[in-house]
């Protein structure tokens, strides 16, 4: 992959690690005089991706005991843009629903994405889960780019899911 790797970590994430990676990225931002508006965009994408990553892997941690596929996160700088990439194992059964969700988000126009975000917020207001299902929609909305993804087979039960999003200054 071309570009400079700014932040990278391979292993299981948690809240403390998310904060550490965010601090690492902030140091890079300060050193390179990146404007705060652009930083905030990358921050939103980064936090939503990492929260999705560790919340999901904690849910299926029993399934991952004997597997060697660890989650991974990185931010790669390419010209003026940042590519934010996150990977984690996922149950094959969950992958179908996730793929359909991302495909639907990628098919939306910017206007439809905004409408869908608000509809999802409204529908999810009183559901029990911590998140109302808006994380990926917010990532697409903030970055104004399509979500690239792939699923690689680990075994019959698990796939290795990678999500990649480009965040540009404007």
């Amino acid at each position, binding site marked *: 992959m071309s570009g400079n790797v700014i932040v990278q970590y391979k292993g299981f994430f948690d*809240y403390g690690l998310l*904060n550490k990676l965010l601090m690492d990225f902030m140091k890079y931002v300060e050193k390179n005089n990146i404007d*705060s*508006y652009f930083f*905030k*965009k990358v*921050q*939103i994408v980064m*936090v*939503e991706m990492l*929260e999705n990553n560790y919340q999901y892997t904690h849910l299926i941690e029993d399934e991952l005991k004997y597997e060697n596929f660890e989650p991974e996160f990185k931010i790669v700088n390419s010209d003026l843009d940042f590519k934010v990439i996150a990977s984690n194992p996922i149950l094959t059964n969950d992958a179908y629903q996730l793929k359909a969700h991302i495909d639907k988000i990628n098919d939306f126009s910017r206007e439809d994405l*905004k409408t869908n*975000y*608000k509809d999802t*917020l*409204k529908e*999810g*207001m*009183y559901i029990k889960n*911590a*998140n*109302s299902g*808006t*994380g990926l929609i*917010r990532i697409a909305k*903030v970055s104004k780019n399509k979500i690239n993804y792939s699923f690689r087979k680990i075994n019959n039960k698990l796939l290795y899911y990678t999500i990649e999003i480009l965040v540009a200054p404007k």
Partner: protein
Amino acid sequence: MENLFIEPTEFSPKIIFDVKDRKFELVGISRPEDVIAFYESIIYKVENYINGMINEHGDFNGFKFHLKFDLSYMNSASSKYILQILDHFKQLFKKGAEINVDWYYDDIDDQIFEDGEDLSDVIKIPFNLIPRK
């Protein structure tokens, strides 16, 4: 009912709920480690207060409530709980109360500005979108 005050941390906002002055404030960064645990007690307090007010007063004409949201960052999980807080106040809005929602942002390009617009649309209460000085 007693007032509520929660000190801010690096990643969770300051909360002030002044029941006597009818003011609710949420200020800072909102991405607490356990978002459910953080917001649950606040929502419980707001819900009890509003149910009590409804039992006590039938008509809310002339009642004013001031809600202030001054956030520099919020994650999508927090937006769900902020909506729940607003939804409880909306019950009073529907009964004639004036609900004044001040939503602060840094820049018109800022995501927080758009978050304010989106939450206002979802909850159907007008927000005063105020640039932070």
